[in-house]
């Protein structure tokens, strides 16, 4: 059987997210629990979480999470990193031995500061530089896989049900102002740790439920810009697109939503002149980034998150508010676990993003 | 009313309209059986000379001279405006032929007076000449007055 990444791998899933607009930090306990009633949306072949604001002590350093298949490659990668970064901390990510999670690879994390001299000679800003380093390791260094690379945030994932993955990584002991989580139902893989969600690049992470029919159009477009889709999953391509649009093109999350879940022409017709011009512009130049087919995603980034459905809303997704908290999930039941009482609960319309920003300065 | 109009610029002079007309008015269901070895007497006819071709059939005039001149009351305009001929009344005097400014009234070998009566009953929706015209030179439509 071929390994994940060598073939297109669509999957169905469960997603959930919670965020404090005040930037209050809380543990992943609730979100882990919230995945339990959505157990049947996963099949045990992948689960994961992303937490934002979890490394306040190292918030100025790129936190790389890696899977290694073996020691040799770990050494090779560390050599490679050392040439480019000051490694502030290198440690095994603490895990809890539980019978539900087995066959784990070597799971390591590094806190990194890019070497100024290297940046200068590469003539790149540090984010672009770091993104390329991630791409290089994931593409060219067989047996190593960077699954988290942002600052003051981290993704944690494994083969297993998400509630087990959360316990495995002891996420109840981390505090973050935002959490996203994912339970996976892949239809085409024996399960590979790297293939689980969230998927991220730098501080952008994506948890995703759905199967985008535009995958190869999106992939082949984004690959023109130096991204290499090694996993052939929707989530991966979405994460790269998020990185491309939000970081490289400097667009806002709302603008990103207008591109990947662009309104229909018939809807654009009815907009104001200014909106019409912008939306037409987006649909012209970023036409290859339109995503069709069912999806519900939560894109996490430093300081906020965006939940978005495909423009036909072919996947369920519910949002709710309670005080400073905002909750997102595939099913309302998951939200009720995180917060039995809510002030408002709604189902965002297809293509209408729900964007939550943490108060400026609070993260 | 909907009428048959002929657009000379599109008429190819193929004469299919004449055969389709003769067939539609033959009362038979097979064209070969209807027209084989027959001298046809269609109610539409193609006039041509050099590179000009066009078909002519009853215009179903607003104020038809054929009716004015009919000595037997055989020629009448029905509710739709179609000018029809009642063969029980017609005595074959040909006054209608004398009066039709378009030369659209003809007779068959038995001297029965024939004219286009819009063969709508036997050709579904549009007259046979219109349906069979390969170049839409003959159309059946509401007039652009």
């Amino acid at each position, binding site marked *: 059987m071929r390994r994940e990444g060598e073939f297109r791998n669509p999957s169905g899933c469960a997603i959930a997210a919670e965020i404090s607009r005040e930037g209050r930090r809380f543990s992943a306990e609730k979100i882990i629990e919230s995945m339990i009633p959505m157990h049947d949306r996963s099949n045990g072949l992948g689960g994961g979480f992303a937490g934002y604001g979890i490394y306040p002590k190292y918030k100025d350093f790129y936190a790389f999470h890696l899977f290694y298949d073996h020691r040799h490659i770990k050494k090779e990668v560390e050599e490679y990193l050392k040439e480019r970064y000051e490694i502030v901390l290198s440690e095994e990510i603490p895990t809890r031995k539980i019978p539900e999670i087995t066959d784990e690879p070597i799971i390591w994390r590094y806190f990194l500061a890019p070497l100024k001299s290297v940046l200068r000679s590469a003539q790149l800003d540090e984010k672009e530089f770091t993104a390329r380093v991630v791409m290089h390791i994931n593409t060219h260094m067989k047996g190593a896989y960077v699954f988290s690379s942002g600052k003051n945030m981290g993704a944690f994932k494994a083969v297993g049900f998400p509630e087990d993955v959360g316990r495995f990584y002891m996420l109840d002991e981390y505090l973050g102002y935002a959490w996203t989580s994912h339970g996976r139902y892949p239809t085409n893989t024996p399960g590979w740790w790297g293939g689980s969600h969230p998927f991220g690049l730098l501080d952008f992470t994506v948890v995703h439920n759905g199967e985008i029919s535009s995958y190869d159009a999106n992939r082949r477009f984004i690959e023109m810009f130096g991204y290499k889709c090694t996993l052939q999953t929707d989530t991966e391509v979405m994460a790269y697109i998020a990185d491309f649009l939000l970081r490289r093109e400097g667009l806002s999350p709302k603008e990103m939503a207008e591109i990947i879940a662009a309104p229909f022409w018939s809807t654009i017709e009815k907009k104001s002149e200014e909106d019409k011009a912008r939306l037409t512009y987006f649909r012209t130049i970023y036409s290859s980034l339109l995503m069709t087919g069912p999806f519900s995603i939560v894109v996490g980034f430093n300081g906020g998150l965006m939940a978005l459905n495909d423009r036909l809303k072919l996947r369920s997704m519910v949002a709710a508010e309670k005080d400073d908290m905002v909750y997102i999930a595939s099913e309302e039941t998951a939200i009720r676990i995180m917060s039995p009482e809510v002030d408002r609960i709604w189902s965002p319309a297809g293509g209408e993003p729900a964007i939550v920003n943490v108060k400026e300065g609070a993260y | 009313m909907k009428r048959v109009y002929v657009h000379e610029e599109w008429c190819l002079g193929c004469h299919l309209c004449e055969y389709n007309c003769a067939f539609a008015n033959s009362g038979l269901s097979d064209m070969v059986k209807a027209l084989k070895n027959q001298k046809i007497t269609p109610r539409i006819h193609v006039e041509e*000379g050099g590179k000009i071709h066009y078909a*002519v059939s009853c215009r179903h005039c607003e104020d038809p001279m054929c009716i*004015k*001149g009919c000595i037997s009351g055989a020629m009448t305009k029905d509710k739709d405006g179609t000018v029809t001929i009642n063969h029980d009344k017609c005595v074959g005097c*040909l006054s209608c032929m004398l009066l039709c400014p378009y*030369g659209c009234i003809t007779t068959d070998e038995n001297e029965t007076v024939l004219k286009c009566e819009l063969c709508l009953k036997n050709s579904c929706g549009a007259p046979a000449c219109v349906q069979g015209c390969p170049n839409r030179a003959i159309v059946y439509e509401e007039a652009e007055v």
Partner: protein
Amino acid sequence: MMKYVIIGNGPAAVSCIDGIRSVDKNSSINVISKEAHPAYFRPLISYYLEGKSKAENIYCRDEDFYEKNGCETVIGEATALDQDNKTVTLKSGDSIVYDKLCICTGSSPFVPPMKGLETVENQYTFLTIDDSFAIEKAITKDSRVLIIGAGLIGLKCAEGLRDRVQSVTVCDLAPRVLSSILDDECAAIVQKHLEDCGISFSLSDTAERFEGNLAFMKNGGAIPFDVLVPALGVRPNIGFFKEAGGECGRAIVVDNAMQTSIENVYAAGDCVEQYDISFGEKRIMALLPNANIGGYTAGVNMAGGETSFDNAVPMNSIGFWGLHMMTAGTYANDGGARMIEEKGENFVKRFFIKDNKLIGFIIIGDVKSAGIYTNLVRNQTDLSELDFDSLIKNPNLLPFSEKNRRKTLGGVV
């Protein structure tokens, strides 16, 4: 509300009713009819005899026409017209008031005094359906019929009777048949055809006196007969109008609106003479299309509408046993008209042209699409607008300009 009165009940009268009702749906219409029949097509009387028309098929309109159009029909004959009091007096003595009057009295047979005519038992004029019924009763398979007059009425009567009697003989003082319509040469063709069909002629000759069933001819012969049909002509029924001071020539003079010289009085049909555009003078054109158009025109104008009948020409389409002839307009060789002839084995066409306009034609035999010629006569078309030489040979729309055809075939006409 107006009071319309129509005297007469033929095609002109019913067309007049149509004309009135196209404008005025409500006012009363009185029709004074001499015959007890609804209006019928007079030319059918010969076809009735011939068996081509059934008695029930001769009427101009449906049975309920008068009722539907709110007409009251009075059987009677007008004898006087009082233009000051606007009344018409009938033979019965009744008088009828009108606001607008239309005279459609048609014509009556003219039989000149002939010696011994009163001794002829079976003699019938031939102008009404009642005449046909009477003749039908009088004839047997063995009857010999003598018709005086080789005009249209006489010949049509001959056609109607041929198959029902032993023999039909037609005599006429004129040297040719249809002398008022045809020239010598054309008449000869027609006569020959009629003779081939079994009609006997005695032309340039006529009955001078009668003794019972024997007619003594001017040229000395004698013709025995069983039934006599004098068909010497008709006279318009205009006596009461003339007496009222209305302007008459040989018939009631009308203008293009079909109005007579008397205010509020109109006339149409066989009893009028009007302007013949092909001839350039007023004359009687006692023909069905003219009666229809004239009657309708009169009706519209009576009811306050405005229309005119300004292109009247005489026209005839006659056929005898397969030989058709058509004429229209004026076709005398005099008056500066030029004749163009087109002749073939079975046909003769003669066209009369004056001032570069077709003023009339005679066609014997090949009458196909002759209406195209008639139209030229009625519209006084300038012949330089088309290729007349080719039109003579083949009446179709090709000799006209494309623009003309586009208008004709591509639009409402």
